[in-house]
Protein backbone atom coordinates (compact mmCIF):
# COMPACT_ATOMS: atom_id res chain seq x y z
CA UNK A 1 0.00 0.00 0.00
CA UNK A 2 1.40 3.38 -0.95
CA UNK A 3 0.56 6.03 1.58
CA UNK A 4 -0.32 9.56 0.70
CA UNK A 5 1.95 11.41 3.07
CA UNK A 6 1.17 14.93 1.95
CA UNK A 7 -2.11 16.73 1.79
CA UNK A 8 -2.52 18.59 -1.48
CA UNK A 9 -5.01 21.41 -1.12
CA UNK A 10 -7.81 20.92 -3.67
CA UNK A 11 -8.84 24.06 -5.55
CA UNK A 12 -12.39 23.85 -4.17
CA UNK A 13 -11.02 23.79 -0.64
CA UNK A 14 -9.05 26.97 -1.21
CA UNK A 15 -11.97 28.63 -2.99
CA UNK A 16 -14.38 27.86 -0.15
CA UNK A 17 -12.03 29.07 2.54
CA UNK A 18 -11.30 32.28 0.61
CA UNK A 19 -14.98 32.80 -0.08
CA UNK A 20 -15.93 32.35 3.58
CA UNK A 21 -13.15 34.67 4.71
CA UNK A 22 -14.29 37.21 2.11
CA UNK A 23 -17.82 36.99 3.47
CA UNK A 24 -16.39 37.59 6.94
CA UNK A 25 -14.44 40.67 5.93
CA UNK A 26 -17.41 41.99 3.98
CA UNK A 27 -19.69 41.49 6.99
CA UNK A 28 -17.17 43.25 9.19
CA UNK A 29 -17.05 46.29 6.90
CA UNK A 30 -20.80 46.44 6.37
CA UNK A 31 -21.37 45.83 10.09
CA UNK A 32 -18.98 48.61 10.99
CA UNK A 33 -20.86 51.11 8.86
CA UNK A 34 -24.24 49.80 10.01
CA UNK A 35 -23.58 49.44 13.74
CA UNK A 36 -19.99 50.25 14.62
CA UNK A 37 -20.41 54.01 14.36
CA UNK A 38 -23.91 54.23 15.79
CA UNK A 39 -25.30 54.91 19.24
CA UNK A 40 -24.69 52.88 22.38
CA UNK A 41 -27.09 50.03 21.51
CA UNK A 42 -25.63 49.62 18.04
CA UNK A 43 -22.06 49.74 19.32
CA UNK A 44 -22.87 47.00 21.85
CA UNK A 45 -24.45 44.91 19.11
CA UNK A 46 -21.38 45.31 16.89
CA UNK A 47 -18.71 44.58 19.50
CA UNK A 48 -20.67 41.80 21.16
CA UNK A 49 -20.82 39.93 17.85
CA UNK A 50 -17.07 40.27 17.42
CA UNK A 51 -16.42 39.23 21.02
CA UNK A 52 -18.69 36.19 20.79
CA UNK A 53 -17.31 34.90 17.49
CA UNK A 54 -13.63 35.53 18.16
CA UNK A 55 -13.65 34.01 21.65
CA UNK A 56 -15.79 31.07 20.58
CA UNK A 57 -13.62 30.11 17.62
CA UNK A 58 -10.42 30.76 19.56
CA UNK A 59 -11.52 28.41 22.34
CA UNK A 60 -12.69 25.82 19.80
CA UNK A 61 -9.33 25.62 18.02
CA UNK A 62 -7.60 25.74 21.38
CA UNK A 63 -9.66 22.70 22.40
CA UNK A 64 -7.82 20.72 19.70
CA UNK A 65 -4.61 21.68 21.50
CA UNK A 66 -6.12 20.57 24.82
CA UNK A 67 -7.27 17.33 23.21
CA UNK A 68 -3.87 16.15 22.07
CA UNK A 69 -1.99 17.30 25.17
CA UNK A 70 -4.52 15.60 27.46
CA UNK A 71 -4.37 12.39 25.42
CA UNK A 72 -0.56 12.57 25.45
CA UNK A 73 -0.59 12.89 29.24
CA UNK A 74 -2.91 9.90 29.49
CA UNK A 75 -0.43 7.91 27.33
CA UNK A 76 -3.18 7.49 24.77
CA UNK A 77 -1.79 6.00 21.60
CA UNK A 78 -4.97 6.02 19.55
CA UNK A 79 -4.59 9.68 18.57
CA UNK A 80 -1.39 9.16 16.57
CA UNK A 81 -3.20 8.11 13.38
CA UNK A 82 -4.82 11.55 13.13
CA UNK A 83 -2.47 13.53 15.37
CA UNK A 84 -1.37 15.84 12.54
CA UNK A 85 -4.97 16.95 12.04
CA UNK A 86 -5.35 18.08 15.65
CA UNK A 87 -1.96 19.73 15.42
CA UNK A 88 -2.96 21.57 12.27
CA UNK A 89 -6.16 22.80 13.92
CA UNK A 90 -4.18 23.94 16.94
CA UNK A 91 -1.98 25.96 14.57
CA UNK A 92 -4.99 28.27 14.17
CA UNK A 93 -4.51 29.46 17.77
CA UNK A 94 -1.88 32.11 16.95
CA UNK A 95 -3.95 33.53 14.07
CA UNK A 96 -7.35 33.62 15.74
CA UNK A 97 -5.65 34.46 19.03
CA UNK A 98 -4.16 37.55 17.37
CA UNK A 99 -7.55 38.66 16.12
CA UNK A 100 -9.17 38.03 19.50
CA UNK A 101 -6.36 39.93 21.21
CA UNK A 102 -6.93 42.97 19.00
CA UNK A 103 -10.69 42.88 19.63
CA UNK A 104 -10.27 42.49 23.40
CA UNK A 105 -7.72 45.30 23.53
CA UNK A 106 -10.08 47.60 21.65
CA UNK A 107 -12.85 46.69 24.08
CA UNK A 108 -10.69 47.51 27.08
CA UNK A 109 -8.68 50.47 25.84
CA UNK A 110 -11.29 52.32 23.81
CA UNK A 111 -12.48 55.39 25.60
CA UNK A 112 -16.18 54.73 25.19
CA UNK A 113 -17.08 51.12 25.27
CA UNK A 114 -20.27 49.57 26.48
CA UNK A 115 -19.34 45.92 26.66
CA UNK A 116 -17.47 45.92 29.98
CA UNK A 117 -19.33 47.94 32.56
CA UNK A 118 -16.50 47.65 35.08
CA UNK A 119 -14.25 49.94 33.00
CA UNK A 120 -16.21 52.96 34.23
CA UNK A 121 -14.17 54.14 37.25
CA UNK A 122 -16.87 56.40 38.67
CA UNK A 123 -19.43 53.62 38.57
CA UNK A 124 -17.03 51.20 40.25
CA UNK A 125 -16.31 53.66 43.06
CA UNK A 126 -20.02 54.04 43.80
CA UNK A 127 -20.91 50.36 43.47
CA UNK A 128 -19.89 48.19 46.44
CA UNK A 129 -20.12 44.93 44.44
CA UNK A 130 -17.95 46.19 41.59
CA UNK A 131 -15.63 47.81 44.07
CA UNK A 132 -15.11 44.47 45.75
CA UNK A 133 -14.14 42.91 42.42
CA UNK A 134 -11.73 45.74 41.53
CA UNK A 135 -8.66 43.62 42.20
CA UNK A 136 -9.64 41.22 39.43
CA UNK A 137 -11.74 43.31 37.06
CA UNK A 138 -9.40 46.12 36.09
CA UNK A 139 -7.84 47.01 32.74
CA UNK A 140 -4.24 46.39 33.82
CA UNK A 141 -4.87 42.85 34.96
CA UNK A 142 -7.08 42.22 31.96
CA UNK A 143 -4.38 43.29 29.51
CA UNK A 144 -1.55 41.42 31.24
CA UNK A 145 -3.53 38.24 31.68
CA UNK A 146 -4.90 38.26 28.12
CA UNK A 147 -1.43 38.81 26.69
CA UNK A 148 0.00 36.00 28.82
CA UNK A 149 -2.86 33.68 27.96
CA UNK A 150 -2.73 34.00 24.20
CA UNK A 151 1.05 34.31 24.19
CA UNK A 152 1.68 31.15 26.17
CA UNK A 153 -0.92 29.18 24.21
CA UNK A 154 0.94 30.18 21.06
CA UNK A 155 4.40 29.36 22.44
CA UNK A 156 3.43 26.04 24.02
CA UNK A 157 1.46 25.05 20.92
CA UNK A 158 4.47 25.80 18.75
CA UNK A 159 6.66 23.74 21.09
CA UNK A 160 4.32 20.74 21.01
CA UNK A 161 4.02 20.84 17.23
CA UNK A 162 7.75 21.11 16.66
CA UNK A 163 8.38 18.26 19.12
CA UNK A 164 6.06 16.13 17.02
CA UNK A 165 7.68 17.12 13.72
CA UNK A 166 11.31 16.88 14.75
CA UNK A 167 11.31 13.06 14.53
CA UNK A 168 9.80 12.98 11.04
CA UNK A 169 13.22 12.92 9.39
CA UNK A 170 15.21 11.59 12.34
CA UNK A 171 13.71 8.31 13.52
CA UNK A 172 14.30 7.39 17.15
CA UNK A 173 17.08 4.84 17.20
CA UNK A 174 16.47 2.95 20.44
CA UNK A 175 13.84 2.21 23.05
CA UNK A 176 15.71 4.42 25.52
CA UNK A 177 15.50 7.33 23.15
CA UNK A 178 11.81 6.63 22.63
CA UNK A 179 11.19 6.72 26.37
CA UNK A 180 13.05 10.02 26.62
CA UNK A 181 11.02 11.41 23.75
CA UNK A 182 7.73 10.37 25.36
CA UNK A 183 8.84 11.88 28.66
CA UNK A 184 9.69 15.18 26.98
CA UNK A 185 6.24 15.21 25.36
CA UNK A 186 4.65 14.49 28.72
CA UNK A 187 6.46 17.36 30.43
CA UNK A 188 5.48 19.93 27.81
CA UNK A 189 1.90 18.63 27.73
CA UNK A 190 1.72 18.90 31.50
CA UNK A 191 2.91 22.50 31.39
CA UNK A 192 0.26 23.26 28.80
CA UNK A 193 -2.47 21.53 30.80
CA UNK A 194 -1.57 23.53 33.92
CA UNK A 195 -1.71 26.74 31.92
CA UNK A 196 -4.98 25.60 30.38
CA UNK A 197 -6.41 25.03 33.86
CA UNK A 198 -5.35 28.51 34.91
CA UNK A 199 -6.85 30.08 31.78
CA UNK A 200 -9.74 28.32 30.05
CA UNK A 201 -10.84 26.28 33.05
CA UNK A 202 -10.88 29.27 35.39
CA UNK A 203 -9.92 32.87 34.76
CA UNK A 204 -10.32 33.52 31.06
CA UNK A 205 -14.09 32.94 30.73
CA UNK A 206 -14.60 35.08 33.85
CA UNK A 207 -12.51 37.90 32.40
CA UNK A 208 -13.60 37.82 28.78
CA UNK A 209 -17.20 36.65 28.96
CA UNK A 210 -18.66 36.62 32.47
CA UNK A 211 -17.48 40.17 33.19
CA UNK A 212 -20.00 41.44 30.64
CA UNK A 213 -22.41 40.98 33.57
CA UNK A 214 -20.08 42.13 36.35
CA UNK A 215 -22.63 42.01 39.17
CA UNK A 216 -23.48 38.42 38.52
CA UNK A 217 -21.20 35.46 38.96
CA UNK A 218 -21.26 31.70 38.72
CA UNK A 219 -18.47 29.37 39.76
CA UNK A 220 -19.67 26.90 37.10
CA UNK A 221 -19.18 29.40 34.30
CA UNK A 222 -15.62 28.53 33.28
CA UNK A 223 -16.15 24.80 33.29
CA UNK A 224 -19.33 25.32 31.38
CA UNK A 225 -17.50 27.38 28.76
CA UNK A 226 -14.75 24.80 28.60
CA UNK A 227 -17.17 21.90 28.13
CA UNK A 228 -19.00 23.83 25.43
CA UNK A 229 -15.87 24.55 23.42
CA UNK A 230 -14.38 21.11 24.01
CA UNK A 231 -17.40 19.39 22.46
CA UNK A 232 -17.22 21.80 19.54
CA UNK A 233 -13.46 21.24 19.27
CA UNK A 234 -13.87 17.46 19.05
CA UNK A 235 -16.59 18.02 16.45
CA UNK A 236 -14.16 20.14 14.43
CA UNK A 237 -11.45 17.45 14.63
CA UNK A 238 -14.00 14.83 13.53
CA UNK A 239 -15.04 16.93 10.56
CA UNK A 240 -11.45 17.38 9.36
CA UNK A 241 -10.66 13.69 9.85
CA UNK A 242 -13.74 12.66 7.88
CA UNK A 243 -12.96 15.19 5.15
CA UNK A 244 -9.44 13.82 4.77
CA UNK A 245 -10.71 10.23 4.84
CA UNK A 246 -13.17 11.03 2.08
CA UNK A 247 -10.37 12.55 0.01
CA UNK A 248 -8.36 9.34 0.38
CA UNK A 249 -5.86 10.51 2.99
CA UNK A 250 -5.24 9.13 6.51
CA UNK A 251 -5.29 5.49 5.39
CA UNK A 252 -4.61 4.27 8.91
CA UNK A 253 -7.61 5.98 10.43
CA UNK A 254 -10.56 3.61 10.56
CA UNK A 255 -13.92 3.34 12.22
CA UNK A 256 -12.31 2.56 15.56
CA UNK A 257 -10.73 6.02 15.75
CA UNK A 258 -13.90 7.73 14.61
CA UNK A 259 -15.85 5.70 17.14
CA UNK A 260 -13.59 7.14 19.83
CA UNK A 261 -14.13 10.68 18.59
CA UNK A 262 -17.87 10.01 18.59
CA UNK A 263 -17.63 8.74 22.15
CA UNK A 264 -15.79 11.93 23.15
CA UNK A 265 -18.54 14.03 21.59
CA UNK A 266 -21.23 12.00 23.31
CA UNK A 267 -19.51 12.00 26.70
CA UNK A 268 -18.68 15.68 26.72
CA UNK A 269 -22.13 16.65 25.49
CA UNK A 270 -23.48 14.96 28.60
CA UNK A 271 -20.77 16.66 30.65
CA UNK A 272 -21.78 20.01 29.19
CA UNK A 273 -25.41 19.31 30.14
CA UNK A 274 -24.34 18.37 33.64
CA UNK A 275 -22.61 21.72 34.09
CA UNK A 276 -25.39 23.64 32.33
CA UNK A 277 -27.92 22.04 34.62
CA UNK A 278 -25.86 22.46 37.79
CA UNK A 279 -25.59 26.18 37.07
CA UNK A 280 -29.24 26.55 36.17
CA UNK A 281 -30.78 24.40 38.89
CA UNK A 282 -28.98 26.00 41.82
CA UNK A 283 -29.89 29.48 40.67
CA UNK A 284 -33.48 28.45 39.94
CA UNK A 285 -33.84 26.74 43.28
CA UNK A 286 -32.19 29.38 45.46
CA UNK A 287 -34.18 32.09 43.68
CA UNK A 288 -31.96 34.96 44.84
CA UNK A 289 -32.60 38.12 42.80
CA UNK A 290 -28.91 38.90 42.18
CA UNK A 291 -28.47 35.50 40.62
CA UNK A 292 -31.74 35.05 38.77
CA UNK A 293 -31.14 38.23 36.73
CA UNK A 294 -28.95 36.13 34.48
CA UNK A 295 -31.71 33.68 33.61
CA UNK A 296 -34.53 36.22 33.44
CA UNK A 297 -34.09 37.12 29.73
CA UNK A 298 -33.06 33.57 28.85
CA UNK A 299 -35.64 31.51 30.69
CA UNK A 300 -38.72 33.68 30.29
CA UNK A 301 -37.71 36.53 28.03
CA UNK A 302 -36.60 37.17 24.48
CA UNK A 303 -34.09 34.31 24.56
CA UNK A 304 -36.48 31.53 25.58
CA UNK A 305 -36.42 30.03 22.08
CA UNK A 306 -32.63 29.98 21.95
CA UNK A 307 -32.54 28.63 25.51
CA UNK A 308 -34.52 25.53 24.57
CA UNK A 309 -32.92 25.24 21.12
CA UNK A 310 -29.55 25.17 22.90
CA UNK A 311 -30.69 22.26 25.08
CA UNK A 312 -32.17 20.36 22.14
CA UNK A 313 -29.11 20.62 19.88
CA UNK A 314 -26.46 20.20 22.53
CA UNK A 315 -28.09 17.67 24.83
CA UNK A 316 -31.08 15.82 23.40
CA UNK A 317 -29.70 15.38 19.89
CA UNK A 318 -26.30 13.89 20.87
CA UNK A 319 -27.87 11.86 23.68
CA UNK A 320 -30.45 10.18 21.46
CA UNK A 321 -28.56 10.08 18.15
CA UNK A 322 -25.12 9.10 19.45
CA UNK A 323 -26.42 6.51 21.89
CA UNK A 324 -25.92 3.44 19.72
CA UNK A 325 -22.56 2.05 18.74
CA UNK A 326 -23.37 2.00 15.04
CA UNK A 327 -24.23 5.71 15.01
CA UNK A 328 -20.78 6.61 16.30
CA UNK A 329 -19.22 4.54 13.53
CA UNK A 330 -21.28 6.04 10.73
CA UNK A 331 -19.59 8.79 8.71
CA UNK A 332 -22.85 10.49 7.73
CA UNK A 333 -24.23 10.66 11.26
CA UNK A 334 -20.87 11.80 12.61
CA UNK A 335 -20.65 14.58 10.03
CA UNK A 336 -24.22 15.69 10.60
CA UNK A 337 -23.85 15.70 14.38
CA UNK A 338 -20.46 17.44 14.28
CA UNK A 339 -21.90 20.29 12.23
CA UNK A 340 -24.94 20.42 14.51
CA UNK A 341 -22.78 20.56 17.64
CA UNK A 342 -20.50 23.27 16.25
CA UNK A 343 -23.59 25.30 15.43
CA UNK A 344 -25.27 24.43 18.73
CA UNK A 345 -22.37 25.64 20.84
CA UNK A 346 -22.11 28.76 18.72
CA UNK A 347 -25.75 29.40 19.67
CA UNK A 348 -24.82 28.64 23.28
CA UNK A 349 -22.12 31.34 23.19
CA UNK A 350 -24.55 33.64 21.45
CA UNK A 351 -27.06 33.45 24.27
CA UNK A 352 -24.29 33.67 26.86
CA UNK A 353 -23.12 37.03 25.54
CA UNK A 354 -26.15 38.58 23.87
CA UNK A 355 -28.54 37.47 26.62
CA UNK A 356 -26.59 39.73 28.95
CA UNK A 357 -25.73 42.63 26.67
CA UNK A 358 -28.93 42.85 24.60
CA UNK A 359 -31.48 41.31 26.97
CA UNK A 360 -34.72 42.65 25.52
CA UNK A 361 -34.56 41.21 21.99
CA UNK A 362 -32.52 38.77 19.90
CA UNK A 363 -30.60 40.85 17.37
CA UNK A 364 -29.28 37.92 15.35
CA UNK A 365 -29.05 38.59 11.60
CA UNK A 366 -26.77 38.05 8.62
CA UNK A 367 -24.02 40.12 10.26
CA UNK A 368 -23.46 37.48 12.97
CA UNK A 369 -23.59 34.69 10.40
CA UNK A 370 -21.11 36.54 8.18
CA UNK A 371 -18.61 37.09 11.00
CA UNK A 372 -18.91 33.41 11.97
CA UNK A 373 -18.40 32.43 8.31
CA UNK A 374 -15.24 34.53 8.27
CA UNK A 375 -13.81 32.64 11.23
CA UNK A 376 -14.84 29.28 9.76
CA UNK A 377 -13.09 30.22 6.52
CA UNK A 378 -10.00 31.26 8.44
CA UNK A 379 -9.91 27.93 10.30
CA UNK A 380 -10.31 25.99 7.04
CA UNK A 381 -7.63 28.07 5.33
CA UNK A 382 -5.05 27.91 8.10
CA UNK A 383 -5.64 24.22 8.94
CA UNK A 384 -5.43 23.27 5.26
CA UNK A 385 -2.18 25.19 4.84
CA UNK A 386 -0.55 23.59 7.86
CA UNK A 387 -1.78 20.14 6.83
CA UNK A 388 -0.23 20.61 3.41
CA UNK A 389 3.09 21.87 4.76
CA UNK A 390 3.94 18.84 6.93
CA UNK A 391 3.59 15.05 6.54
CA UNK A 392 0.14 13.73 7.42
CA UNK A 393 1.47 10.73 9.32
CA UNK A 394 3.52 10.94 12.50
CA UNK A 395 5.11 7.69 11.37
CA UNK A 396 8.15 7.71 13.67
CA UNK A 397 6.23 8.25 16.87
CA UNK A 398 6.64 5.33 19.31
CA UNK A 399 2.85 4.97 19.65
CA UNK A 400 2.15 4.94 15.92
CA UNK A 401 1.76 1.18 15.66
CA UNK A 402 -0.52 1.14 18.69
CA UNK A 403 -2.74 3.59 16.86
CA UNK A 404 -2.88 1.46 13.71
CA UNK A 405 -3.98 -1.68 15.55
CA UNK A 406 -6.34 0.33 17.73
CA UNK A 407 -9.54 -1.45 18.59
CA UNK A 408 -12.47 -0.24 20.65
Amino acid sequence: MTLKERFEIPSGFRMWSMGLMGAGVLSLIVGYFMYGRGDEAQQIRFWAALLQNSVYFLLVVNAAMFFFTAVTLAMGGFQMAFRRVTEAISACVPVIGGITFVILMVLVLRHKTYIYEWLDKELVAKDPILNGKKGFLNPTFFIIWTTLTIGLWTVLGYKMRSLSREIDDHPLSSIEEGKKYIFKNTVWSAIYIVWFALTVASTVPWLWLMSTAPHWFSTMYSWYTFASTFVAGIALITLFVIYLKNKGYLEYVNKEHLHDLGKFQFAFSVFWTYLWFSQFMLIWYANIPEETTYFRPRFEGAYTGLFYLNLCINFLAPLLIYMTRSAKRNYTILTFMSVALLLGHWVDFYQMIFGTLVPDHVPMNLFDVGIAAGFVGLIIYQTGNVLARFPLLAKNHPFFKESIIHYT
Partner: protein
Amino acid sequence: MSIKRFVVGSFDDEAVLFPAVKKVRVAGYKIHDVYTPMPIHGLDTAMGLRDTSIHTAGFLYGITGTTTALSGISYTLIYDWPLNFGGKPHFALPAWIPITFELTVLFASVGMVLTFCYLCQMAPFVRKHHFSLRSTDDLFVMVIECTPKTNVADLEAFMKTTGASDVHVQDAETGWWLGTYSRNIPSVDNAKTILV
Protein backbone atom coordinates in the same frame (compact mmCIF):
# COMPACT_ATOMS: atom_id res chain seq x y z
CA MET B 1 -29.50 -29.03 28.48
CA SER B 2 -27.77 -31.70 26.66
CA ILE B 3 -24.48 -33.44 26.76
CA LYS B 4 -22.25 -32.76 23.82
CA ARG B 5 -18.77 -33.65 22.75
CA PHE B 6 -16.19 -30.88 22.56
CA VAL B 7 -12.63 -30.66 21.35
CA VAL B 8 -10.68 -28.42 23.73
CA GLY B 9 -7.49 -26.77 22.49
CA SER B 10 -5.25 -24.82 24.85
CA PHE B 11 -2.94 -22.04 23.65
CA ASP B 12 -0.10 -20.44 25.54
CA ASP B 13 -0.11 -17.16 23.66
CA GLU B 14 -2.77 -14.90 22.21
CA ALA B 15 -0.55 -14.25 19.20
CA VAL B 16 -1.03 -17.94 18.30
CA LEU B 17 -4.69 -17.91 19.26
CA PHE B 18 -5.78 -15.28 16.73
CA PRO B 19 -4.55 -17.08 13.58
CA ALA B 20 -5.85 -20.35 15.04
CA VAL B 21 -9.34 -18.88 15.47
CA LYS B 22 -9.26 -17.72 11.86
CA LYS B 23 -8.06 -21.09 10.58
CA VAL B 24 -10.73 -22.98 12.53
CA ARG B 25 -13.44 -20.71 11.16
CA VAL B 26 -12.12 -21.04 7.61
CA ALA B 27 -12.09 -24.84 8.02
CA GLY B 28 -15.78 -24.60 8.90
CA TYR B 29 -15.77 -25.90 12.46
CA LYS B 30 -18.17 -24.39 14.95
CA ILE B 31 -16.42 -22.56 17.78
CA HIS B 32 -18.39 -23.07 20.98
CA ASP B 33 -16.45 -20.36 22.82
CA VAL B 34 -12.96 -19.10 23.57
CA TYR B 35 -12.03 -18.72 27.24
CA THR B 36 -9.23 -16.31 28.09
CA PRO B 37 -7.67 -15.09 31.34
CA MET B 38 -8.24 -11.45 30.36
CA PRO B 39 -10.38 -9.57 27.86
CA ILE B 40 -8.72 -9.61 24.44
CA HIS B 41 -9.39 -6.74 22.07
CA GLY B 42 -10.64 -7.85 18.69
CA LEU B 43 -11.28 -11.47 19.62
CA ASP B 44 -15.05 -11.07 19.30
CA THR B 45 -14.59 -9.72 15.77
CA ALA B 46 -12.20 -12.55 14.92
CA MET B 47 -14.70 -15.09 16.22
CA GLY B 48 -17.47 -13.47 14.17
CA LEU B 49 -19.71 -12.76 17.15
CA ARG B 50 -22.55 -10.33 16.58
CA ASP B 51 -22.67 -7.09 18.58
CA THR B 52 -24.22 -7.49 21.97
CA SER B 53 -27.71 -6.07 22.40
CA ILE B 54 -27.25 -5.46 26.11
CA HIS B 55 -27.19 -1.70 25.43
CA THR B 56 -30.70 -1.91 24.02
CA ALA B 57 -31.75 -3.59 27.24
CA GLY B 58 -29.90 -0.87 29.14
CA PHE B 59 -31.80 1.84 27.27
CA LEU B 60 -35.10 0.19 28.09
CA TYR B 61 -34.18 -0.14 31.77
CA GLY B 62 -33.03 3.49 31.73
CA ILE B 63 -36.30 4.88 30.39
CA THR B 64 -38.15 2.66 32.83
CA GLY B 65 -36.19 4.38 35.60
CA THR B 66 -36.93 7.82 34.18
CA THR B 67 -40.63 7.03 33.96
CA THR B 68 -40.71 5.56 37.47
CA ALA B 69 -39.03 8.61 38.96
CA LEU B 70 -41.12 11.20 37.13
CA SER B 71 -44.42 9.43 37.68
CA GLY B 72 -43.62 8.65 41.32
CA ILE B 73 -42.60 12.19 42.19
CA SER B 74 -45.38 13.84 40.24
CA TYR B 75 -47.98 11.58 41.82
CA THR B 76 -46.84 12.36 45.36
CA LEU B 77 -46.08 16.06 44.91
CA ILE B 78 -48.92 17.04 42.56
CA TYR B 79 -51.90 14.77 43.31
CA ASP B 80 -51.40 12.93 46.56
CA TRP B 81 -49.86 15.47 48.92
CA PRO B 82 -49.02 18.83 47.31
CA LEU B 83 -46.73 20.97 49.45
CA ASN B 84 -45.42 24.48 49.02
CA PHE B 85 -41.63 24.43 48.86
CA GLY B 86 -40.35 28.00 48.86
CA GLY B 87 -43.04 29.19 46.49
CA LYS B 88 -42.00 26.78 43.76
CA PRO B 89 -44.63 25.40 41.41
CA HIS B 90 -45.92 21.94 42.26
CA PHE B 91 -44.60 20.70 38.94
CA ALA B 92 -41.00 21.67 39.80
CA LEU B 93 -39.22 19.77 37.07
CA PRO B 94 -35.65 21.13 37.56
CA ALA B 95 -35.71 20.05 41.20
CA TRP B 96 -36.67 16.53 40.18
CA ILE B 97 -33.97 16.07 37.59
CA PRO B 98 -31.27 14.83 40.04
CA ILE B 99 -33.58 12.10 41.37
CA THR B 100 -34.75 11.24 37.86
CA PHE B 101 -31.15 10.97 36.78
CA GLU B 102 -30.22 8.78 39.74
CA LEU B 103 -33.13 6.40 39.20
CA THR B 104 -32.35 6.19 35.47
CA VAL B 105 -28.77 5.23 36.25
CA LEU B 106 -29.80 2.84 39.01
CA PHE B 107 -32.35 1.01 36.87
CA ALA B 108 -30.03 0.86 33.88
CA SER B 109 -27.01 -0.37 35.82
CA VAL B 110 -28.74 -2.93 38.03
CA GLY B 111 -30.86 -4.14 35.13
CA MET B 112 -27.84 -4.52 32.86
CA VAL B 113 -25.85 -6.40 35.52
CA LEU B 114 -28.73 -8.82 36.07
CA THR B 115 -29.24 -9.24 32.32
CA PHE B 116 -25.54 -9.87 31.89
CA CYS B 117 -25.61 -12.51 34.64
CA TYR B 118 -28.66 -14.11 33.05
CA LEU B 119 -27.01 -14.22 29.60
CA CYS B 120 -23.85 -15.71 31.08
CA GLN B 121 -25.93 -18.06 33.26
CA MET B 122 -24.29 -16.82 36.41
CA ALA B 123 -26.16 -16.84 39.70
CA PRO B 124 -25.62 -18.06 43.25
CA PHE B 125 -25.66 -21.88 43.45
CA VAL B 126 -25.79 -22.21 39.66
CA ARG B 127 -23.10 -24.50 38.27
CA LYS B 128 -21.65 -24.68 34.78
CA HIS B 129 -19.10 -26.95 33.25
CA HIS B 130 -15.54 -25.56 33.12
CA PHE B 131 -13.52 -26.77 30.20
CA SER B 132 -10.24 -25.76 31.75
CA LEU B 133 -9.69 -24.06 35.08
CA ARG B 134 -6.39 -22.72 33.80
CA SER B 135 -8.32 -20.45 31.44
CA THR B 136 -8.80 -18.22 34.49
CA ASP B 137 -5.05 -18.11 34.97
CA ASP B 138 -2.67 -18.49 32.05
CA LEU B 139 -4.20 -20.51 29.21
CA PHE B 140 -6.22 -19.40 26.21
CA VAL B 141 -8.75 -22.15 25.66
CA MET B 142 -10.64 -22.60 22.41
CA VAL B 143 -13.57 -25.02 22.57
CA ILE B 144 -15.00 -26.51 19.37
CA GLU B 145 -18.37 -28.19 19.34
CA CYS B 146 -18.60 -31.54 17.57
CA THR B 147 -21.60 -32.45 15.48
CA PRO B 148 -22.52 -36.08 14.71
CA LYS B 149 -20.69 -35.65 11.37
CA THR B 150 -17.44 -34.33 12.88
CA ASN B 151 -14.45 -36.59 12.56
CA VAL B 152 -12.99 -36.04 16.04
CA ALA B 153 -9.58 -37.51 15.29
CA ASP B 154 -9.19 -35.24 12.24
CA LEU B 155 -10.25 -32.24 14.26
CA GLU B 156 -7.75 -33.03 17.00
CA ALA B 157 -4.95 -33.34 14.49
CA PHE B 158 -6.05 -30.09 12.83
CA MET B 159 -6.02 -28.27 16.18
CA LYS B 160 -2.47 -29.44 16.79
CA THR B 161 -1.38 -27.90 13.48
CA THR B 162 -2.83 -24.52 14.45
CA GLY B 163 -0.37 -24.30 17.32
CA ALA B 164 -2.34 -25.58 20.31
CA SER B 165 -0.09 -26.75 23.14
CA ASP B 166 -2.67 -29.29 24.31
CA VAL B 167 -5.70 -30.83 22.61
CA HIS B 168 -8.18 -33.20 24.21
CA VAL B 169 -11.82 -34.26 24.02
CA GLN B 170 -14.43 -33.58 26.66
CA ASP B 171 -18.05 -34.57 27.02
CA ALA B 172 -19.85 -31.79 28.80
CA GLU B 173 -23.24 -30.65 29.89
CA THR B 174 -23.99 -27.43 27.97
CA GLY B 175 -26.57 -26.05 30.37
CA TRP B 176 -26.42 -25.19 34.04
CA TRP B 177 -27.51 -27.10 37.09
CA LEU B 178 -28.00 -26.52 40.77
CA GLY B 179 -25.98 -28.11 43.52
CA THR B 180 -22.41 -29.22 43.90
CA TYR B 181 -19.98 -29.72 41.05
CA SER B 182 -19.62 -33.47 41.55
CA ARG B 183 -22.24 -34.40 39.01
CA ASN B 184 -21.44 -37.52 37.12
CA ILE B 185 -21.54 -36.71 33.45
CA PRO B 186 -21.99 -39.67 31.12
CA SER B 187 -20.16 -39.59 27.84
CA VAL B 188 -21.96 -38.65 24.65
CA ASP B 189 -22.00 -42.26 23.50
CA ASN B 190 -23.57 -43.47 26.75
CA ALA B 191 -26.08 -40.65 26.66
CA LYS B 192 -27.09 -41.74 23.20
CA THR B 193 -27.55 -45.33 24.25
CA ILE B 194 -29.56 -44.21 27.24
CA LEU B 195 -31.76 -42.09 24.96
CA VAL B 196 -32.14 -44.94 22.52
